[in-house]
């Protein structure tokens, strides 16, 4: 993975010093919170329901054991012994003291981590395929491009106060594990007929209160034009977006108002200007970064067999382990969705165990996923039983990847000051209802996603079953949505009908799955059946 050089380290250290100065000005009363808020948000520091919350960037979801141990230490030293992995492959802490925040940033900088641009009207942490560098179906590792774009978009002067947040994703396979087209700007690495590498470019996606799926703005962009193209997109948006209504300032709204064609025309005109003015990154810089992502020294001649004699281990391996590109190796998914637990939460002790496993078995690499799980990307198949035993001993060996209990949930009204309803208790009740392993397996792939308000941090628009919490005269109420997806055939979920209370929504989810089981044809996942039969039969089953 990428390592900082003197330049990167100096920039992050300068950021820590700057924030220390800003915090001390705030505490001394030399800044109001109105002035301080945008500055703290640029460092991922929110004021939440119970305390300050700090969001730490995990660039494109990749981290090593030393970094994970530091995250554990921060949880123990400055928080209450745990952290929460988010749908942007980041981690956040819920109980941070403002006066500690500069020290935390200082600790992060020691392990080449930061919280720069994890909130506010910024270019946010870039998301990527969590199986990057390991997936059997990728054409290359997308992370060198992620890192190059990370650097290009850090402290970008012209775009330091964008109309709203801006989210980028990069993948390099046909299968989409990163919800690509739900991003403002998304790149899929492709090869053209001449064998050259380029980007298929999508723009204008996003969730929130007005969801849009990104449209394909360029079929093939030569990779060496990415810096010009990205600036062109940002400039068109920065200049022409509305600034009078915070809910209408995301790029997706501008794309919608101008129309895809006109937006693309303006981008192409700016792009031509940026190309003509030059000032592009040198190929040598890409090569330098790419070297950090060279495949680890995989052992040759390993056996592909896995001893499945232990039925508990076999159940885990069958569900959590995914094909790796190197013979004898596997990708092991770690579930952060234990039944009864909080989706994405992990204790400091568990972080340490996972860090040890990464160091010992996975070439010191870990990944965070947008589904709020973790991944050991490069493990020998022969080591899987030992890995499973260690995970089981610390409560991380649930076997539910992509099943009904592998829910995405935002923190909701238990933690978040924007939320209208709690998400986590609903997630827990649904998980309890579907906890039976045989039942979950029979239902198969089912992506349930829960948000506690229309900002959609729980990705309800992309849920096969989406749940949106609303406030109805001070009472929590939950709307049911069906048919969303973040995979290669991206689709937006639609509202099924009137909302429910907490127990009612769990029953409604169950009725939807029962209808699916009655209606499905061979090999169909929930989403396939929904696409074939449509909303009406589901409505009837749920409301009839």
């Amino acid at each position, binding site marked *: 993975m990428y390592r900082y050089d003197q330049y990167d380290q100096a920039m992050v250290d300068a950021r820590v010093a700057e924030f220390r100065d800003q915090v001390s000005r*705030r*505490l*001394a*009363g030399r800044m109001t*919170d109105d002035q301080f808020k945008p500055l703290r948000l640029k460092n991922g520091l929110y*004021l939440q*329901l*119970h*305390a*300050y919350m700090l969001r730490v960037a995990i660039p494109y979801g990749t981290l090593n054991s030393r970094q994970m141990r530091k995250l554990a230490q921060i949880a123990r030293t400055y928080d*209450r012994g745990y952290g929460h992995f988010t749908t942007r492959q980041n981690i956040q802490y*819920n*109980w*941070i*003291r*403002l*006066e500690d925040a500069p020290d935390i940033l200082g600790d992060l900088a020691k392990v080449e981590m930061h919280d720069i641009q994890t909130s506010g009207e910024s270019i946010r942490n870039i998301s990527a395929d969590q199986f990057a560098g390991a997936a059997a179906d990728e054409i290359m590792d997308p992370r060198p491009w992620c890192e190059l774009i990370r650097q290009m978009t850090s402290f970008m002067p012209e775009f330091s106060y964008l109309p709203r947040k801006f989210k980028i994703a990069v993948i390099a396979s046909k299968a989409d594990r990163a919800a690509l087209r739900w991003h403002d700007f998304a790149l899929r690495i492709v090869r053209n007929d001449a064998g050259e590498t380029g980007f298929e470019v999508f723009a204008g996606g996003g969730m929130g209160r007005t969801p849009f799926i990104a449209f394909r703005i360029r079929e093939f962009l030569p990779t060496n034009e990415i810096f010009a193209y990205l600036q062109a997109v940002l400039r068109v948006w920065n200049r022409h977006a509305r600034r009078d209504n915070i809910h209408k300032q995301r790029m997706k709204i501008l794309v919608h108002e101008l129309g895809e064609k006109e937006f693309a025309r303006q981008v192409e005109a700016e792009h031509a200007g940026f190309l003509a003015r030059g000032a592009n990154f040198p190929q040598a810089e890409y090569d330098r970064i790419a070297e950090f992502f060279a495949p680890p020294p995989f052992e040759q001649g390993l056996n592909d067999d896995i001893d499945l004699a232990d039925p508990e281990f076999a159940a885990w391996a069958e569900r959590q382990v995914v094909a790796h590109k190197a013979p004898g190796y596997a990708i092991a998914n770690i579930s952060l969705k234990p039944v009864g637990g*909080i989706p994405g939460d992990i204790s400091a002790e568990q972080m340490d165990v996972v860090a040890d496993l990464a160091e010992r078995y996975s070439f010191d690499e870990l990944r965070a996923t947008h589904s709020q799980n973790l991944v050991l990307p490069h493990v020998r198949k022969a080591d899987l039983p030992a890995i499973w035993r260690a995970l089981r001993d610390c409560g991380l060996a649930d076997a539910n990847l992509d099943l009904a209990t592998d829910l995405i949930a935002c923190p909701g*009204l*238990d*933690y978040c*000051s924007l*939320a209208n309803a*709690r998400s*986590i*208790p609903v997630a*827990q009740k649904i998980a309890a209802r579907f906890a039976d392993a045989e039942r979950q397996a029979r239902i198969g792939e089912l992506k349930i996603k829960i948000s506690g308000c229309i900002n959609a941090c729980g990705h309800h628009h992309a849920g096969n079953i989406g749940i949106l919490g609303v*406030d109805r005269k*001070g*009472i*929590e109420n939950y709307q049911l949505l069906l048919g969303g997806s973040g995979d290669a055939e991206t689709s937006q979920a639609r509202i099924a009908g009137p909302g429910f209370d907490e127990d009612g929504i769990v029953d409604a989810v169950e009725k939807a799955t029962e209808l699916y089981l009655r209606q499905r044809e061979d090999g169909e996942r929930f989403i396939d059946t929904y696409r074939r039969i449509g909303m009406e039969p589901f409505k009837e089953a749920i409301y009839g």
Partner: protein
Amino acid sequence: MKIITGNNLRSGAVVWWTGYDWSLHVEDSIDVGEHAEAVIQREEGAQRVNGAHAVEATRDEDGVRPAHIKDRIRALGPTVRPDLTLKPADPAVGNWVI
């Protein structure tokens, strides 16, 4: 009644206005009537509290109960982590917010 809540500037802890100081416990709140704005201005100006605002509440035999669920969760802590609330010994404490 109208009560005032905010977050301690340094720690971020949820606090409630008692008439002369800030308390972690909502039951210490007093009814500020029409004086909320003056208290908020003075306390924010003195860098003691952040995001102070007045909320509606009622007082009954169990103490002060904010009118909105969001404020009741603020007063208690996350309902999904009873161990981290102000009443960690009571596993049914979450029922109070509903």
